[in-house]
């Protein structure tokens, strides 16, 4: 966006863009994947469709991020031009010319949780225990 530059003006293209990678791996809260619906209307009678978030994500893994950013912006004429400065990629493959100009990184807000099978077995065994089996318990 280039908002830190003294020459910044929304209608001035100073070459700064935001690159978003790994949009395929986004996480939604709770059962949002099946509860969230995206509305679209073709303009014709009976042309309304509601597509669930997981169906949208199956079809285009960048669409949910794109719509979320689009909705968070002010609905003025500049919105569609500002959206042009957001580049979203479903995985880590970014074109070389985009990657060369990356200068900074915005860290993710929510850390990716560690899976139990990715923790070494020895560490799991030595982790302090809270629950102990009762005396008449049979292992399974």
């Amino acid at each position: 966006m280039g908002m830190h530059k003294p020459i910044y003006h929304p209608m001035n293209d100073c070459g700064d863009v935001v690159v978003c990678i790994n949009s395929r791996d986004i996480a939604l809260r709770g059962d949002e994947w099946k509860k969230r619906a995206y509305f679209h209307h073709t303009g014709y009678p009976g042309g309304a469709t509601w597509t669930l978030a997981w169906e949208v994500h199956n079809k285009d893994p960048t669409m949910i991020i794109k719509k979320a950013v689009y909705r968070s912006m002010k609905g003025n004429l500049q919105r569609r031009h500002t959206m042009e400065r957001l580049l979203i990629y479903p995985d880590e493959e970014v074109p070389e010319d985009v990657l060369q100009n990356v200068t900074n990184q915005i860290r993710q807000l929510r850390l990716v949780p560690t899976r139990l099978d990715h923790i070494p077995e020895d560490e799991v065994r030595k982790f302090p225990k809270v629950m102990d089996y009762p005396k008449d318990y049979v292992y399974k």
Partner: protein
Amino acid sequence: MALLARTGVSFLKNAVLSTSVRTLSLTNKLNLKELQERKEGSTLVVEGVNVPSPRTELLIRAENIKDLVQPEGTPKETCYMCALGLDVKHTDVLILSQFVRSDGCMLPRRITGLCRRQQKKIGKMVSMAQKAGLMINLTPSFCKKDPKKRYGFKKFNSYFDETTIFQKKIPTPFEHLKNR
């Protein structure tokens, strides 16, 4: 004659069945056991072997911690999880995995020894962790072991909010406007 026949039948029944009926005992005769299967020739021997619990040395209890400050209003007789006052999230798989069986199923309350509230809370968090695919090695044998191979919406990543566990009522979007 009929009385004699009935007593004869009951006597025979007792003689046959008494050997198979297991005698009840109220003492804690059974200890922590592991079922071991081995084959001796053509016979399969299933044996329950007494084993010491591997957890006793690593066990953490609130009464053993000296400088543990409990928040005000906590009742004196609480279960061990309430007494510890840990803020467990659904991503803390190292804690949650202690409460599940090897197939990822939550253990019942008579085994975990938790209070009702904690049992409910931890059970919900276990299911949250399972849905998020964090305890994929603790699943039934027919599970595909890879969250990305799941069907439909289940293959995408999700996270959970623990404050929703005891939320009795989910407020409708316009409810806060009515109360003004």
